[in-house]
């Protein structure tokens, strides 16, 4: 069907979308003439739960549909996968005790999750959420979407950022920029706010905590310092309540509810509902009908606050460190912006107010503000937004391993990005061809206390006596907060080849293979759909033929003609349940041809019949 397109007489480029890929929920937004706007799905929902489930046929579904499957097929459904992005199995051992993730045994530097009969890496799972968001956006905008800005916690390290970028690629999105969540939020708030001043963004989400301090100056949003904890969020509060409820319910001699994934998921929902109620009511009930008995537990605000106080306190430590890094005191902060669902909790608000001595802003929906900010950043990239510019920083120091397992820092935390450092390396042995550089992220002095990022292998160095080679290595953290390394032989001026071995995360080849596989999968899906369509076609022609065989026209056919038709029918039935839609279509076409004269005869008799009762003037 053709549609009208209004031509504005300009070189129209497709929209860049802004995506908040959250631990619990995800949203997609776009910049309009009037400002950023969240795009809804066909049912008018803005939020896509970050839940992914694998269907029996191996396809992944994400969002609301997967959230429902969390109850009925918990063993093939995952949530909060953002906690696993860019991490190794050893990093998440503690969390696995509380999350029903099933880690496949062949997980090494990249975690693999078992969902049904297949395993998936965290980027593949996140890609399913992104694909759902992309589909929603394409339906809402009526045009294809291929470029995106995706937000990440400010305190995400290189591997976590790279994993997010990989997820985008797997979902068929070109990720033009990764933006830090608190910074994105400040963009959304900054639209019609004061033009000058220092603001703190306190971002307490489902699974991560960030604090960023920015200076606003005439449309420039300059991040002065950032800090956080990528494993601290509303999830931790849920787990706290969940543990109490599980203990309450006990086991009565039988197996505990903790052993029953479906039971745990239903209890989790009940716990979350109670937590949310406690944000506006003085008390709430955790209630669950479990195996015929009704569990009920009343929790009042003061008990809740006593329970979560240590978690809230854990968010304040990074805030103090961030102030110190920005060389500011709480009195220097003009405004505080609250982001993330967990900032609805009254205790969180009072704690933040007390620390910064300023009443926090809560005007914008804390669930939506990050996605709105991502859309503003998308507008900056597309040129729609001209007067604003974000200058962000790298959250962690970057260094290289030196003698004795000590880290030598090259780029310090809170450096404005892009940031770079150049370091010269030489060889230790005559004729040495390779130099291996171990790059780490973190603030501590020893290698064992920092996060290994990657090993860079300088290859094919010209064989010269020891100490004669001079390889200049350039470490550049780009605007996404991701490290790029290039090297040059200072003696010859030649570009030096560098092989990257990421410590955690997928290699370039693995990502390529996954993209290829998803193409193959899409082809398979397409073939299946075409097969189903062909069968529908076959059903209708078989039905029509059978009808015709009962008509008067059938009797007028020669036995040979009838034989050809019967044969053609049989041919369709023979390939009907196969997988080759082309073959089925051929047979359908053959039956079509064989029944042509039959159809004409029927038509003629029908016309004759019709004419009998009609008088033509």
């Amino acid at each position, binding site marked *: 069907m053709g549609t009208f397109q209004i031509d504005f007489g300009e070189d129209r*480029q497709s929209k860049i979308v802004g995506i908040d890929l959250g631990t619990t929920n995800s949203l997609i937004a776009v910049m309009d003439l009037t400002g950023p706007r969240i795009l809804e799905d066909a049912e008018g929902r803005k939020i896509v739960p970050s839940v992914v489930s694998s269907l029996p046929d191996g396809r992944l579904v994400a969002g609301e549909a997967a959230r429902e499957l969390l109850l009925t097929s918990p063993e093939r459904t995952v949530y909060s996968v953002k906690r696993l992005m860019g991490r190794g199995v050893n990093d998440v051992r503690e969390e696995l005790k509380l999350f029903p993730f099933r880690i496949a045994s062949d997980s090494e530097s990249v975690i693999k999750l078992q969902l049904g009969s297949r395993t998936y890496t965290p980027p593949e799972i996140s890609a399913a959420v992104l694909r759902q968001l992309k589909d929603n956006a394409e339906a809402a905008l009526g045009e294809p979407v291929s470029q995106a800005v995706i937000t990440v916690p400010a305190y995400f390290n290189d591997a976590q950022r790279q994993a997010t970028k990989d997820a985008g690629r797997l979902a068929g999105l070109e990720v*033009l*920029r990764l933006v830090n969540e608190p910074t994105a939020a400040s963009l959304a708030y900054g639209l019609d706010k004061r033009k000058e001043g220092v603001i703190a963004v306190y971002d307490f989400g489902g699974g991560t905590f960030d604090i960023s301090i920015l200076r606003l*100056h*005439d449309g*420039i949003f300059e991040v002065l310092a950032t800090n956080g904890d990528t494993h601290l969020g509303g999830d931790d509060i849920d787990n706290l309540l969940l543990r109490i409820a599980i203990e309450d319910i006990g086991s009565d001699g039988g197996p505990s509810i903790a052993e029953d994934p479906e039971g745990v998921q239903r209890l989790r929902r009940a716990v979350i509902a109670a937590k949310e109620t406690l944000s506006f009511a003085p008390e709430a009930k955790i209630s669950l009908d479990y195996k015929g008995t009704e569990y009920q537990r009343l929790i009042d605000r003061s008990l809740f606050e006593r329970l979560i106080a240590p978690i809230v306190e854990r968010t304040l*430590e990074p805030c103090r*460190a961030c102030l*110190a*890094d920005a060389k500011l005191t709480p009195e220097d902060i003009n405004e505080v912006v609250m982001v993330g669902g967990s900032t609805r909790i009254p205790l969180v608000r009072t704690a933040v107010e007390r620390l910064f001595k300023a009443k926090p802003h809560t005007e914008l929906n804390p669930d939506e503000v990050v996605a709105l900010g991502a859309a503003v*950043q998308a507008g*900056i*990239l*597309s*040129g729609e937004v001209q007067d604003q*510019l*974000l*200058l962000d920083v790298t959250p962690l*120091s970057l260094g290289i391993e030196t003698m004795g397992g000590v880290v030598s*820092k090259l780029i*310090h935390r809170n*450096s*404005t*990005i*892009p*940031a*770079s*450092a*150049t370091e010269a390396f030489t060889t230790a042995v005559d004729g040495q061809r390779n130099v291996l550089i171990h790059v780490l992220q973190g*603030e*501590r*002095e020893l290698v064992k206390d920092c996060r290994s990022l990657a090993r860079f292998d300088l290859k094919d160095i010209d064989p010269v006596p020891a100490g004669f080679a001079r390889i*200049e290595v*350039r470490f*550049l953290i*780009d*605007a996404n907060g991701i490290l790029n390394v*290039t090297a*040059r032989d200072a003696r010859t001026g030649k570009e030096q080849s560098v092989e990257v071995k990421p410590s955690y995360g997928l290699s370039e080849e693995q990502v390529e293979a996954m993209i290829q596989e998803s193409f193959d999968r899409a082809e398979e899906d397409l073939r299946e759909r075409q097969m189903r369509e062909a069968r529908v076609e076959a059903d209708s022609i078989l039905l029509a033929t059978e009808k015709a065989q009962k008509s008067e026209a059938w009797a007028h056919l020669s036995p040979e003609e009838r034989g050809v038709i019967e044969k053609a029918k049989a041919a369709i039935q023979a390939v009907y349940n196969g997988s080759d839609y082309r073959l089925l279509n051929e047979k359908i076409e053959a039956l079509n041809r064989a029944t042509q004269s039959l159809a004409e005869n029927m038509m003629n008799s029908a016309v004759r019949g019709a004419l009998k009762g009609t008088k033509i003037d």
Partner: protein
Amino acid sequence: MSSSSRNFYEFFGIEPKLDLDESALQKRFYELSRVWHPDRFSRKGPEESARAMENTAIINDGYRTLRDPVRRAEYLLTEEGFPIGEQRSKDVPPELLEEVFELNMALEEMRSGDESARPQLEEARQKFVSMRTEIDGQLKSLFAKYDASESESETAKQALHEVRGALNKRRYVENLIRDVDKALNPALSAAQTSED
């Protein structure tokens, strides 16, 4: 190709002085960022985007270096052929020898859990902090001396030589303060490391 091959002063279009107007530098930083930030080039070709990223890295590295008086001085010394690299913190300034000896004993006691060394360390910290303030004052007048001298002149070279001496002493004192802080409050300093 490497950022160090472009002189930060030149890139910012300011004279290579040791003392400079920090608010003017900030203004220049914002202006240059508006022109060169990669966000402005995301729909341009790969070559232009790469150039934008390179230039923005220089702008950011340059601003970080020039806005801090100590880093700025270290940078200018290196550019003028007075590298400070090797002798950073090895040699104890002679006038501090005795002090450092006593300090190290107190630090040992503190680290082994002997709280009685705390008052002594706190007192030492006070002393080093005021010493640092004193050095900063010296640096300020040395900066003025260099800036007033003719470039490449003997006065200029002498000034840079003295700046280098003051910077090395400052770094030494700075490290002492850090060591004391670490001993006094191990938990806090685990999260926060030195600036350099």
